[in-house]
């Protein structure tokens, strides 16, 4: 299947760049080093490929990840061997856990030196075997073009994921004809795209017959681009939809059927709906422990339908009555057709009373927090960000309390506007991911909602943002603590705050850090300063650190303690009388 027309002799380095262009890559995130000098030398004159020079290889991979999450196309990173390669591991594991398409190119010592403990040698193929979808060590320059084509194919098809290609130096300097394959065909890799018709019918009949259905949508809906199909599916069944953290925006938060996020810090009504449901329909969700709580008491009255492209996700964590393997978009489209043409679901009083019950839960315990006049509540900052940006910003997050508040108090109406490290829970992800997202969407407003701990894990990338004129905004919810860990210490470790105090009110001075790098630094210490700071940050066309000095005692609620049942939620504590309780109106 090789196209022999217009072949041209090229070095391996040149073949790599030409192959990337054939895959429509325009941006590569990278960092140079000894064994990749040949590739970087080729990049020097290349007009079509832009290399974004980061300040750390981890930053490069997270940027590629952020780029991929907002575009749906594989992000690409290029680093050197040894430490360059090992520095990518966290970023690759992060993308793997969240099924993000990515191709990581690592330099390697010359083939003759592999295994000799050469300078800057690391067995990166061995190291990343468990955290890549697939990986390669290229041993012949003639295999290079095909390998790259295959890598992109594997990264973007089926359940997407990161693929790593290790490139020994001598492969990049050797030459051969550049032959770009027309297509790839891997006999051992054929993802199931279409659902089984008999099973889909069975699932549709069962779903339509349910009296208390709940749809739980996961990241697979985003990966598959099945937003319209999901919306139609929910309407046909008149079923409420809860979106896991990975799926925020895949179903509009303002839709009356939306339940928000389920799980450990999910909404009261989402968790209650799951626990009382008689039919749970999992769509592209793997039922991770943060979503299910204790699995033995998870959705005790429900039959479970699970739709996923990855058969291993089915029955991995929870029992499943009807499994459907296939691409979400195809399966939902086919099930919608079955529902419309054959079943024509009707809703009786029982199913109407189910939605009424859910509305009652929504009004009993909406997401809430207590507003104060003297100290900034972190939730207030997130709410203000939502109001001022009208929900149109691309929000990235770090990990911990900042992430949960960003998930709860910003409302996501559109897919690919929420970029957050779900499975691996990587602190330091949000800021470089925001830079990658900004590169992909130059006209979008990109805001990283960060904690004072997380932001310091990849803070060096502010140089990348400033130099490349990428006006990302970072809202630091500064509570001077590793807030989520502190919350667990308060609740479960007798308020023994072992090594979670960061003193980051003073160290560092985030405003000065921003200024030192040529960015803009702003600070708010009172609630009244929050809005002006946000407006100013949006107005300046530069990267901005907004340092919001927040109430350090604030906790994320609701909370299902680890290992507890979903309906055993801790709800916000009642505050002192004079404080006005602010309740957010849940959408009815």
């Amino acid at each position, binding site marked *: 299947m090789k196209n022999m027309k217009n072949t041209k002799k090229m070095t391996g380095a040149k073949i790599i760049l030409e192959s990337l262009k054939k895959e429509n890559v325009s941006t590569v995130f990278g960092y140079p080093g000894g064994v990749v000098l040949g590739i970087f030398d080729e990049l020097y004159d290349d007009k079509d490929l832009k290399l974004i020079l980061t300040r750390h290889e981890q930053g490069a991979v997270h940027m590629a990840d952020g780029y991929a999450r907002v575009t749906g196309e594989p992000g690409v990173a290029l680093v050197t061997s040894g430490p360059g390669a090992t520095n990518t591991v966290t970023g690759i594991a992060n993308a793997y856990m969240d099924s993000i398409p990515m191709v990581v190119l690592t330099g390697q010592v010359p083939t003759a030196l592999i295994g000799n403990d050469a300078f800057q040698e690391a067995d990166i*193929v*061995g190291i990343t*075997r*468990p955290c890549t*979808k*697939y990986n390669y*060590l290229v041993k012949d320059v003639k295999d290079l073009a095909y390998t790259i084509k295959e890598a992109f194919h*594997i990264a973007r098809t089926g359940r997407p994921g990161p693929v790593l290609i290790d490139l020994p130096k001598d492969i990049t300097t050797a030459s051969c004809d550049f032959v770009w394959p027309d297509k790839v065909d*891997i*006999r*051992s*890799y054929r993802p199931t795209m279409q659902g089984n018709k008999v099973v889909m019918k069975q699932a549709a009949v069962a779903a339509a017959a349910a009296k208390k259905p709940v749809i739980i949508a996961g990241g697979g809906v985003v990966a598959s681009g099945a937003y319209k199909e999901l919306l139609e599916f929910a309407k046909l069944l008149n079923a409420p939809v809860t979106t896991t953290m990975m799926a925020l925006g895949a179903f509009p938060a303002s839709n009356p059927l939306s339940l928000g996020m389920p799980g450990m810090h999910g909404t009261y009504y989402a968790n209650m709906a799951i626990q009382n449901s008689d039919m749970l329909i999992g769509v592209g969700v793997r039922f991770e422990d943060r979503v299910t709580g204790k699995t033995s008491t998870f959705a005790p009255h429900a039959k479970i339908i699970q739709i996923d492209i*990855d*058969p*291993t996700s*089915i*029955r*991995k964590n929870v029992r499943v009555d009807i499994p459907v393997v296939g691409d979400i978009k195809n399966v939902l489209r086919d099930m919608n057709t079955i529902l419309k043409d054959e079943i024509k679901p009707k809703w009786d009083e029982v199913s109407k009373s189910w939605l009424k019950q859910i509305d009652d839960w929504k009004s009993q315990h909406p997401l809430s927090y207590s507003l104060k006049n003297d100290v900034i509540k972190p939730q207030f900052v997130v709410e203000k960000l939502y109001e001022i940006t009208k929900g149109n910003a691309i929000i990235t997050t770090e990990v911990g309390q900042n992430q949960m508040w960003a998930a709860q108090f910003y409302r996501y109406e559109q897919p690919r506007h929420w970029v957050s490290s779900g499975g691996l829970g990587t602190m330091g992800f949000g800021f470089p991911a925001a830079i990658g997202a900004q590169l992909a969407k130059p006209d979008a407003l990109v805001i990283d909602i960060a904690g004072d701990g997380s932001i310091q894990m990849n803070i060096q990338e502010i140089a990348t943002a400033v130099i490349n004129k990428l006006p990302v905004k970072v809202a630091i919810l500064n509570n001077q603590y590793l807030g989520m860990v502190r919350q667990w210490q308060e609740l479960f470790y007798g308020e023994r705050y072992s090594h979670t105090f960061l003193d980051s009110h003073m160290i560092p001075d985030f405003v000065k850090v921003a200024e030192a790098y040529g960015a803009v630094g702003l600070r708010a210490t009172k609630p009244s300063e929050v809005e002006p700071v946000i407006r100013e940050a949006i107005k300046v066309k530069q990267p901005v650190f907004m340092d919001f000095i927040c109430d350090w005692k604030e906790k994320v609620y609701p909370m299902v303690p680890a290992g507890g049942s979903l309906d055993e939620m801790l709800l916000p504590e009642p505050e002192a009388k004079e404080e006005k309780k602010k309740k957010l109106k849940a959408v009815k």
Partner: protein
Amino acid sequence: MRHTISVLVENKFGVLSRISGLFSGRGFNIESISVGETLDPQISQMTIITSGDDQIIEQITKQLNKLVDVIKVVDLLEVDHVEREMVLIKVSPRQEQKAEVLRVAEIFRGRIIDSSPKTYTIEVTGDEKKIEALIGILRPMGIKEFIRTGKIAISREGIK
């Protein structure tokens, strides 16, 4: 419950490591694994003996299938098949038991493939029970060491 899982894989470098890494990384158990080339030299056959409840075995077969280099996975518990394993046993019996060792080897259709003034090395092929039985009988007579290949298995063809 023990299962014999037959896996057809691309005969490429690193594949064994991907398979064994899958088992270790997910906490699955490998009792034995044997690998060899097939009629098509580009394909290798692995026979893996593992154990676990239904849910674990389902995960094992699905996870194996998910690996890019895996072409086909068959849980042989679900199909009629024959299994064989080979053992090499080095026995050092007392003088008066030497004849008995030879007799036992014969009963088990074994072959003596090496002998020294003090030892015999016996080669025996069979299913697991036969090999366990042989080891059980020879043990009191003085087994110096033994080595087992791990099981290989192949499906039976129908009679028709």
